[in-house]
């Protein structure tokens, strides 16, 4: 089911995220990303499948998304502009629709310099705003140069925004362009300061596109520091690092649940949904959802 239909019905849309592995799915083995997705599937509406995240070469997000769909889990197929030119991107969107994908998240993509193939040629033929506009055109039955499709795609188009970005107005300019280009929902980058999120929402709600609050589960002080040092666009405040550090390792999951629930209770009323990025801790998501009472 398309996320846009859920938003239209006024549902509080909950999604989580899995990352395909470096390797193939073979000999009937259940891949890790599917196991992760199964842990959250009963409680979430859909699961994002990342596209070679952090520019690390992995199993393709389309193949992994199809695995989820076949398992009865609604996939949100992530597609980035980093590795494919406009021909490949359009072709992949046609493929996605043909394989039963209904939800797509259009992103720029992390730069190759952050990944494990730093000598690769960056593509970035088009940007995420243009990708949304092109995908919108495919939904209307034509490719980006105006050729008619034998059958149009039928994809719900999602986009991302980063409320942490400074200057915020510049981020909002791009966000508005994405809304105008056809974005039907936004998932935000992880935010840990409700005040930052509040000032973002006050302006972003004018675009009339549903917003999902994004949150990366903070697993340990080391992980939080790693995120601060290596993941661009996220800032975990020192107070949260101290908080997760205040409990012994065996109590970290409970503490992570507590922190996440607290943030969602504060930020949830400002948005139309929440997007979890559990980074391997999908098992905590059902408990978080049960405690936020949606």
């Amino acid at each position: 089911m398309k996320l846009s239909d859920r938003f239209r019905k006024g549902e509080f849309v909950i999604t989580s995220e899995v990352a395909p592995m470096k390797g193939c799915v073979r000999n009937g083995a259940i891949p890790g990303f599917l196991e992760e997705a199964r842990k959250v599937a009963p409680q979430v509406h859909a699961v994002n499948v990342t596209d070679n995240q952090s520019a690390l070469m992995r199993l393709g997000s389309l193949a992994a998304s199809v695995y989820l769909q076949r398992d009865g889990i609604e996939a949100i197929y992530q597609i980035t502009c980093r590795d494919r030119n406009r021909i490949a991107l359009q072709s992949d969107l046609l493929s996605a629709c043909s394989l039963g994908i209904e939800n797509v998240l259009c992103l720029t993509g992390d730069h190759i310099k952050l990944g494990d193939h730093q000598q690769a040629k960056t593509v970035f033929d088009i940007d995420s705003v243009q990708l949304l506009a092109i995908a919108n055109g495919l939904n209307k039955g034509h490719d980006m140069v105006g050729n008619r499709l034998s059958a149009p795609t039928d994809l719900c188009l999602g986009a991302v925004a980063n409320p942490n970005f400074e200057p915020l107005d510049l981020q909002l300019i791009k966000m508005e362009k994405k809304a105008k280009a056809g974005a039907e929902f936004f998932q935000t980058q992880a935010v840990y300061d409700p005040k930052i999120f509040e000032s973002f929402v006050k302006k972003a709600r004018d675009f009339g596109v549903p917003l999902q609050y994004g949150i990366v589960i903070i697993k340990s002080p080391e992980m939080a520091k790693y995120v601060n040092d290596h993941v661009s666009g996220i800032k975990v405040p020192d107070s949260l690092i101290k908080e997760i550090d205040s409990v012994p390792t065996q109590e970290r999951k409970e503490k992570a649940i507590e922190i996440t629930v607290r943030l969602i209770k504060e930020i949830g009323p400002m948005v139309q949904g929440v997007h979890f990025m559990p980074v391997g801790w999908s098992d905590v998501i059902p408990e978080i959802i049960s405690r936020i009472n949606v």
Partner: protein
Amino acid sequence: MIGTKKKPIQEVLEALEGYQKVGIVGCDGCGKTCATGGSEQVEEMAKMLKERGKRVVFDLAPNTTCNLNNIRSFFTGLEGAIKKSEALLVLGCGGAVQVVRQLTEEYGYTIPVKSGLDTVGHMDTIIPGEFLLEQCRECGQCVLNSTGGICPVTKCAKSLLNGPCGGSQDGKCEVDSNRNCAWILIYERMKAIGEVGKLNDYLGPKDHSKAARPRTLYVKTGEVL
């Protein structure tokens, strides 16, 4: 200006292996600015090659080695020296190497023309003698009028045309924390010149056919094909 950097000396020596008598052609234009191919570097290269047992037949740095007319007149009278050389080593950009090669062909010499430098882009001098920056990728479809005179195609690591990615941190690029996010620079500049409203305009995908290489510029008609 065309930016160049010196090839590792081992690579230069490998390229000249088997050629004893070498003529060195520098470039007192861009090569001088980059301190890679000016008269001074040509002298250094001549000294180094001599130390390694090569015979340097001539060493010169024309003013702009990429300009065929310019080096044609510069080389007039040097035909004998070129003829004596078993190979030429050019300390200039990739264009200069090929223009020199073309000139040797005009003279009817089939000697190899080797490159001593790597070409690293269209550069602008920010601090003379210290710091040069790539600011133009020669895309053939300039967007500077829409972006406050700051090129996102070149200065944004992802060449984004409609605003920044989400990766900027403290105003810096996700690829290099020493570099300012091009889109923040554009935004600040557009605010300063009173054109920030133009950033709301959607810029469509670039026409990469305008950058399909190799391009030819017909000066008389202004056509680029």
